[in-house]
């Protein structure tokens, strides 16, 4: 909590406190300036661009058109298709990651031996470049090179539902470890003695997990969910490499990118960017409203 000093108290600050204040500002200034210059200003600029008709091929024709770009996007079936695909991918992959991540976390927490090995192994999907992993999956499912093609019938990446399934799989593989590590840290917060007490009280293994471990882990779970939901909603790399968004597999980020760099329509592209930003803000706001103090950052305020 930043103490809000009354003016009278501020006048009376000792040299030490004044020094502390000045040092605090000095130390934060560079980070704040960078973050403002590189995000706040461009976001404002994006909003401005989204109100323009701005085609990069004909920059001289740029002109203010009000909200019509938003009207065009929101009435376009492409936006809504991409939106629902993104929501589907987000919901399914986060749900699978939570379950699988919990299983991985329990293995890492409880295994009698080899925990170090498991943790090392699990960090590789986390650390690997998404594009690399995406290529690995792409080749696995591509007829001619892949080992998984036969399992899914011919050319699964060209089929709408199969392709979405593969995108989710690639996303889950890559990000479950991060989820698992966050959950592992949450598991470590559950005191062993509390679990023993539950054991003595006659709780079965499943009851101990459901009635003791899960409630105590709730903050960690919520933080992991928030991070991953926001992250999944911005999915881009995997889709770009696996399908390029063809056959109705594009996410909103893919749609925005295509409008900017394929259609070269800066106005529409910026409107999509702003809409995505609003979606993410709504997700974050909902999480923080729903879970209050469990949100990340509440701790940072001290």
């Amino acid at each position, binding site marked *: 909590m930043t103490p809000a000093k009354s003016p009278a108290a501020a006048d009376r600050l000792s040299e030490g406190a004044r020094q502390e204040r000045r040092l*605090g500002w000095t*130390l934060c200034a560079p980070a704040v300036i960078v973050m403002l210059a590189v995000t706040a200003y461009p976001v404002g600029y*994006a909003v401005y661009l989204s109100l323009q008709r701005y085609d990069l091929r004909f920059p001289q024709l740029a002109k203010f058109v009000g909200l019509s770009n938003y009207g065009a996007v929101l009435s376009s079936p492409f936006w809504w298709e991409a939106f629902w695909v993104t929501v589907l991918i987000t919901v399914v992959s986060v749900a699978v990651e939570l379950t699988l991540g919990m299983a991985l976390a329990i293995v890492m927490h409880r295994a009698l031996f080899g925990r170090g090995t498991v943790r090392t192994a699990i960090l590789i999907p986390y650390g690997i470049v998404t594009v690399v992993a995406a290529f*690995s999956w792409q*080749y696995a499912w591509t007829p001619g090179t892949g080992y998984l093609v036969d399992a899914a019938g011919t050319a699964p990446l060209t089929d709408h539902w199969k392709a979405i399934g593969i995108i989710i799989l690639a996303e889950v593989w890559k990000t479950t470890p991060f989820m698992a*590590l966050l959950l592992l840290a949450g598991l470590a917060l559950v005191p062993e003695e509390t679990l023993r007490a539950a054991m003595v009280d006659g709780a079965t293994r499943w009851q101990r997990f459901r009635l003791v471990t899960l409630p105590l882990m709730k903050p960690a779970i919520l933080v992991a969910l928030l991070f991953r939901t926001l992250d999944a909603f911005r999915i881009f790399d995997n889709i770009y490499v696996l399908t390029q968004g063809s056959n109705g597999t594009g996410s909103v980020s893919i749609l925005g990118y295509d409008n900017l760099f394929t259609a070269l329509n*800066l106005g529409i592209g910026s409107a999509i960017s702003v809409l995505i930003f609003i979606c993410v803000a709504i997700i974050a706001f909902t999480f923080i409203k729903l879970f209050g103090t469990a949100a990340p950052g509440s701790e940072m305020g001290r």
Partner: protein
Amino acid sequence: MTAATNKRVAGWGVANTLVVLYALFPVWWIAALSFKDPSTLTDGSFIPQKWTWANYRGIFETSEFTRALINSIGIALISTVIAVVLGTMAAYAVARLRFPGKQLLIGMSLLIAMFPPISLVSPLFNIERFLGLFDTWPGLIIPYMTFSLPLAIYTLSAFFREIPWDLEKAAKVDGATPAQAFRLVIAPLAAPGVFTTAILVFIFCWNDFLFAISLTSTTSARTVPAAIAFFTGSSQFQQPTGSIAAAAVVITIPIIVFVLLFQRRIVAGLTSGAVKG
């Protein structure tokens, strides 16, 4: 050992093996692909029938990949250094000092951590073209360090908070100015945390794809993930599969080295700030 414990050991053995397989098999698959001779590239097997270094030789022969590799390393390193330096300063202030506006800083970095990068791509594209930063190193370094700053501040302030408060008080009573307390007492203790943060930030920058394909147009600043996506193969009639696989393995090596050497630190860094709420 009793039969029951034997069974438990075996059970955990199976579980561990499954996890390791899960984590490694796509990596193994692309590595195997990179060692395959063009004639066996399509056999779909997990172990190359005919081993060859040809794919690696291929990518290092042209400047397309080597240039991208230099770009990747340079851009990621510079971004990491700047983000960690700025992040350390801000995180120290957040964790240790009382000053008005702290909440604002925390809120802002949280906001940026949640920010969808695509929302910044269009304005940055235009601004950077205007400023002449498009398709240059600074053009990528600037967004990278900005987007990794929240990660750096968040992780570092968690590390800083674990350094006992009393030490700084002790240093002050011992006659240190706040700056000396930072340099002589806090900084050495924070070094492991700073190092860990640097690894995480580096991985973040190394991993980026969206900015790399959006804010570059030639090989002068294109990083490896973007370059791979534009690979065309060494000849016009050849599929670039082998080259892509080889390049993919090359840029995975630093990650594997980091993970093997610093597993413990990375885990601590990733989880430090996240669970204390």
